[in-house]
């Protein structure tokens, strides 16, 4: 069941570090694959030890998505780059209304990276994939010289299948449609920021990183004709709504008072001068549906553990300028615009 054991001493995962031989294609690389990746991800496809995975696909339209993960820090409250790499791609596939089937994983490791950390990351990845029921069936490892990477970069690609009657797409939002959000905003971004160099602050907020495909399946069971789905990751809700507005050629109008935001997240954003609308999430989705389906969709979301705090946050409107507007808690209105570059803290 494993590669031929033509090496003698097992890898020292406690004290060892990644070195250039781990990416050289030689014995050390075979050993790393065997003792780490195969052991953690173990499944029928990987065990065949081919350079690719061969599988049959059920009927329907195929969906494919890929995502590279370069997060810093690698470990954060509520997760790490490993589970994030699984959740991110599973979610990208799921946002087409698809059932995710398989994942591939590419690792770029920096020379000197502790093997203990790599093991932690790979095991977290394996656990996330197992929990999601989406096996990692093929992969690749490269090692770059010290200083040419940031510890570890992971690229994952996912494949899934969309049932014939599902037509979720970012260009299907129509005036009058309702906009729903599955839960609180900004948890992931604040959890990450709380550990950044020069910025560390104590918080009980953990990343919301999670695989959303089962929530999506429950939503589609209740409302098969969901018009749009998207996970508001980088750029937050603000960027996601602008993307959907542009794709569909419509405007959006949201209500600030309806947005679920945890006190700790709001407080951290206040302190840093950031707007939670633009802070990243990794376990939330935005759904857009016909107004008559909104109550049913909301009920289905709230019945799922990952959608317990779901809310209707606004509606789609006709607008040739594709503005995303927000009624503030004051009753005034403003634009929720694209972010210019990165959100930066204010001086005073």
């Amino acid at each position, binding site marked *: 069941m494993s590669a031929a054991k033509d090496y003698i001493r097992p890898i020292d995962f406690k004290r060892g570090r990644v070195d250039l031989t781990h990416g050289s294609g030689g014995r050390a690389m075979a050993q790393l694959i065997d003792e780490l990746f195969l052991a953690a991800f173990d499944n029928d496809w990987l065990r065949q030890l081919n350079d690719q995975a061969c599988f049959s696909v059920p009927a329907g339209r195929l969906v494919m998505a890929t995502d590279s993960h370069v997060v810093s820090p690698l470990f954060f409250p509520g997760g790490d780059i490993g589970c994030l790499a699984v959740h991110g791609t599973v979610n990208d596939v799921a946002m087409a209304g698809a059932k995710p089937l398989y994942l591939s994983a590419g690792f770029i490791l920096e020379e000197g990276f502790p093997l203990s950390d790599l093991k932690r990351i790979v095991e977290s990845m394996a656990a996330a994939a197992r929990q999601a029921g989406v096996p990692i069936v093929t992969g690749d490892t490269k090692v770059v010289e010290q200083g040419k990477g940031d510890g570890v970069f992971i690229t994952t690609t996912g494949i899934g299948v969309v049932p014939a009657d599902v037509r979720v797409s970012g260009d299907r939002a129509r005036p009058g449609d309702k906009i729903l959000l599955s839960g609180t905003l900004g948890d992931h971004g604040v959890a990450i920021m709380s550990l950044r160099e020069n910025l560390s602050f104590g918080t009980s907020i953990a990343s919301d990183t999670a695989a959303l495909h089962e929530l999506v399946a429950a939503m589609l069971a209740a409302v098969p004709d969901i018009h749009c789905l998207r996970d508001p990751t980088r750029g937050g809700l603000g960027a996601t709504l602008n993307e959907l507005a542009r794709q569909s050629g419509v405007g959006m109008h949201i209500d600030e008072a309806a947005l679920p935001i945890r006190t700790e997240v709001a407080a951290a954003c206040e302190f840093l001068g950031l707007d939670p609308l633009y802070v990243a999430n990794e376990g939330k989705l935005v759904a857009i549906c016909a107004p008559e389906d909104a109550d049913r969709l909301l009920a289905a979301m709230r019945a799922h553990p990952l959608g317990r705090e779901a809310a209707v946050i606004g509606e789609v409107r006709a607008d040739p300028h594709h503005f995303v507007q927000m009624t503030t808690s*004051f009753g005034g209105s403003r634009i929720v615009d694209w972010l210019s570059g990165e959100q930066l803290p204010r*001086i005073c």
Partner: protein
Amino acid sequence: MKKKQGQRPRQHEEQPMGIPYVDEFRDGRLARKIAAAIAAAVRPARQYRFMEFCGGHTHAIYRYGLEDLLPANIQMIHGPGCPVCVLPMGRIDDAIALARTPGVILASYADMLRVPGSNGTSLMKARAAGADVRMVYSASDALQLAVAHPDRQVVFFAIGFETTTPPTAVVIREAARLDLDNFSVFCNHVLTPPAMRAILETGDELGLDGFVGPSHVSAVIGTRPYDFVAADYRRPVVISGFEPLDVLQSVLMLVRQVNDGRVEVENEFSRAVDAEGNRKAQALMTELFELRPSFEWRGLGQIPASALRIRAAYAAFDAEQRFPVPAQAVPDHKACECGAILRGVKRPRDCKVFGTACTPDQPIGACMVSSEGACAAYYNYGRFKDVAVAGQA
């Protein structure tokens, strides 16, 4: 001014997710009550023109859509109170030159990184081209960089009004105590009252009826330095907090002063500001800094005694003494109206390049870069109103 009893509003039961001491000042119902009081107080036949000096207020006005809550005959005019916007292009070029000096790490507040210098450069572009520019969140982070990199010269690009000056003073004194020979400050701290005087000296060009005064600055210098605005120029001032309810309440106080024919410096932000300010911070500023005879402001030109430089006793920590700094005056881009906008003479949408050649992604002027800049605030939060106006026409 006597402290009012019960100044701090009560917590609201129906806001379980709220932040104590912040949400109280963002209560929509209370806002509508104040807005109704303003609407009842204004005289319909009269125009009220108030300048919010500080970019923090401009930001709050747009972010919370406060203009929608004000009667049509109240006009808010955006003032020069954004430390990023008022720094002239020549000083940005100087900072870029410092960043390019071999062996130097330039530590800067994040807002400054994207501000264009001449020839389309910026600290961000200098960094991409190899200069070692680090984004810091505080002056003490810059000092820490110097401690961590004894083999490099760390220059802190210090900017800001009286609010950010005391922290700069603290790190210079700390660097002296640690006897650090690799830390210096490129000092660009400017003062609020001279800028306000410069605006008032432009005469009646603006037809101002009063000022929403800066509160964070006043927490340091107190309210007394604004007495001249009322005494010499006969304009009311209300020192205002930055929360949306603070701004609305301050506008109401200004309307009442105008209606009553009163000209006073009032303090809406009494929860943190008094007449004298923070004496310890003032003493520290006096110990470390002295007035520059004159300093150039973007949009306002040279203003005498309006900025600070490091005293001779601390010259070892003055980047302008330690490094050759070009110190050239550079005119603003011809099409850019930042100057007129900073003086309150023009509004962002009056600028020909607003929203076309000049956007937050491709800024020409500093007003479009800083989150507190009038153009950026208007572009990011308010520009849909132009479309609505055009649609009606």
